[in-house]
């Protein structure tokens, strides 16, 4: 088994929480992991990504080769597209629809969604607004992970255990919120209807 996932977003959006859940789950399933991440200058509101590689055999490269990612999981729609060169043929795109616009030449949103829809396998969900409904917009990343998990060979059990373990430091309430978000994501992916953009 080999899984290559690119996580993407903007510095400060917290993609490393998603990485930590994936890593913890994979470790509990006795799988090998390599996960590279960005520290430094780009964390100040620049483009950031993390390469997550999970396998039952030895993993050599810390970076995913171009054209070898099974999935790009993004917390921001334009950042999703930045890593298209890494996507496998028929690989999956999973993203929040919520844009993060801290640059002057941010593209038109409808054009962005249209571009994403040109790739066959995509899931666009309004994770941030769903998360707000549950109680905290920060849980958007667990909604996205939930949706992505339906396409990954990691067990639901090990992922939920990982969420419990990682958020336990914060509070029981936060654990519950994130588990709920994760379930919400699974549900949204299973009953996926094409994302429709309305301004």
């Amino acid at each position, binding site marked *: 088994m080999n899984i290559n996932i690119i996580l993407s977003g*903007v*510095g400060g959006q917290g993609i490393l929480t998603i990485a930590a859940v994936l*890593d*913890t789950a994979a*470790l509990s399933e006795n799988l*090998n*992991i*390599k*996960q*590279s*991440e*960005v*520290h*430094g*200058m*780009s*964390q*100040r*509101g*620049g*483009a950031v990504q993390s*390469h997550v590689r999970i396998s039952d*055999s*030895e*993993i*050599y*490269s*810390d*970076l*995913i*080769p*171009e*054209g070898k990612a099974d999935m790009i999981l993004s917390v921001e729609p*334009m*950042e999703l*597209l*930045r890593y*298209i*060169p890494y*996507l496998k043929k028929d690989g999956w795109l999973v993203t929040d629809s919520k844009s993060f616009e*801290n*640059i002057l*030449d*941010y*593209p038109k949103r409808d*054009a*962005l969604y249209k*571009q994403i829809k040109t790739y066959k396998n995509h899931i666009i969900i309004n994770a941030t607004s769903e998360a707000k409904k549950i109680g905290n917009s920060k849980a958007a990343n667990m909604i996205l992970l939930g949706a992505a998990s339906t396409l990954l060979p990691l067990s639901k059990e090990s992922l939920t255990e990982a969420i419990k373990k990682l958020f336990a430091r914060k509070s029981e309430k936060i654990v519950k919120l994130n588990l709920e978000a994760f379930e919400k994501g699974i549900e949204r992916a299973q009953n996926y209807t094409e994302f429709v953009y309305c301004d």
Partner: protein
Amino acid sequence: MKNLVLGNEALAQGAIDAGISGVYAYPGTPSTEITEYIQKSKTAKSLGIHSTWSVNEKTAMEAALGMSYTGKRAMVVMKHVGLNVASDVFMNMAVSGINGGLVVVVADDPSMHSSQNEQDSRFYGKFAQIPILEPSNQQEAYNMMHYAFDLSEELQLPILLRMVTRLSHSRSGVTFKERRMQNGMQLPVDTKRFALIPAFAREQYETLVNKKSLLVDSSEVSKFNKLELKDPSIGVICSGIAYNYVMENIGEDNDYSILKISQYPMPKDQIKALYDYCKMVLIIEEGYPFIEEILHDYFEENPKIIGKLSGDLPFTGELTPNIVGKALGLTRHIDEGIPSIVSGRPPQLCDGCGHTDMFNAINELIPEIGDKNVFGDIGCYALGALPPLNSINTLIDMGASITMAKGAADAGMEGAIAIIGDSTFTHSGMTGLLDAVYENTPITVIISDNSAVAMTGAQDSSALGRIKSICLGIGVDPEHLKMVVPLRKNHKEIVNILREELNYKGVSVIIAQRACVRLSSDKKEEIRQKIALIN
């Protein structure tokens, strides 16, 4: 169970388990997490391992040498350009040798993700004539620490351990081993070798040069170097992380002839064996063509040897599995580009950052002083070189804002401004300020003090609560030492003060003090208390 750690954290745990008594460091991407890991480690705390940040890399390395002098093991950590700052002690401690094991960890940043250049630290190791270790993965990084300290004590030399960004910042499962005890205090039998007056230094240098063959022998039998001779049509020499990219492309069951190098000086016999056995030799290394140049020296300019110099691999930027695949003739698929709709997203100052208020004030005066007068420095405020601010004209190395402004003023520039952060000021700005004070050079220095080393992740700044007294101590005229609070509501006041000081024909310092907005309220409170205690 394996521990999921960054390459940097693997090194740090390796150092704790190898029995260090202290780590000395100044933050710098991609090296910072090594020291932070030890600072947060409960084990390290209970063992009394020193881990407080130093003011700069030079003071860090000297302190590490001091600890080694007492017989205890010490590690010193920095980013590649930090070694430029520490190079004086680095070169000389190779001559004096060490007492307790001493490992210098330097993290290079190929592709300049967060740096001004992509210098390759292996050249420094060669320059100082000491062994260099270059791990290829996280487990090796951990294992190497123990080995490095043993080697250091055996050879009585400092060891250079070279990391690169991708290994520093990538996690993997690592198995930890047992921890060994720290060394007890054991002062050198003969301290003469640490007193490098010419007579002693000549003797010591002779000793260093005579160790050369011992160093090569050690590389030849090192468990971290590995030679496999299979298919003779092409031999691959790869070092450090490049080994992974090669293996990623060719897989476990391959019949390539490969020499993996993770310890230098180069294992000459192994290289010779591969060279004689193979028709072609491809060299894949992260950084400059270090091995490749040496091979051309061994075998003379030779078309049989290919790599970066022959153009088979790019000279600049970091390696990737795809670049390596191409050099091996294995990557075939045509890369799909990034969709044209995607815009660049460069980093920028946070909303509400105090540095922005200072740039806004400077920018208002640019019509009066000209747009080429602002000398910048390194830190978050370096982003003032980018749109929309476009305030800074120069950024070279830590501290150069003040000294370059001075040089320009000496040349006749009027209204030269230096802008420097609090940590950069204590790292390398203070000495330059003394130069300016000594001559009363007409420059205006803005110290943008956010009570943190923000760029590298908000570490504690040694400058905390001391900037004003340092400036007064250096001899800045109290009349021209101004304090401002960089807030939008104070914009007019800041512009007026800046204009006044620009008109003064001598050294002025404006300290702009407001904590980095990214600090938690707890941290800000802690800072307030510390400042109150100091003053």
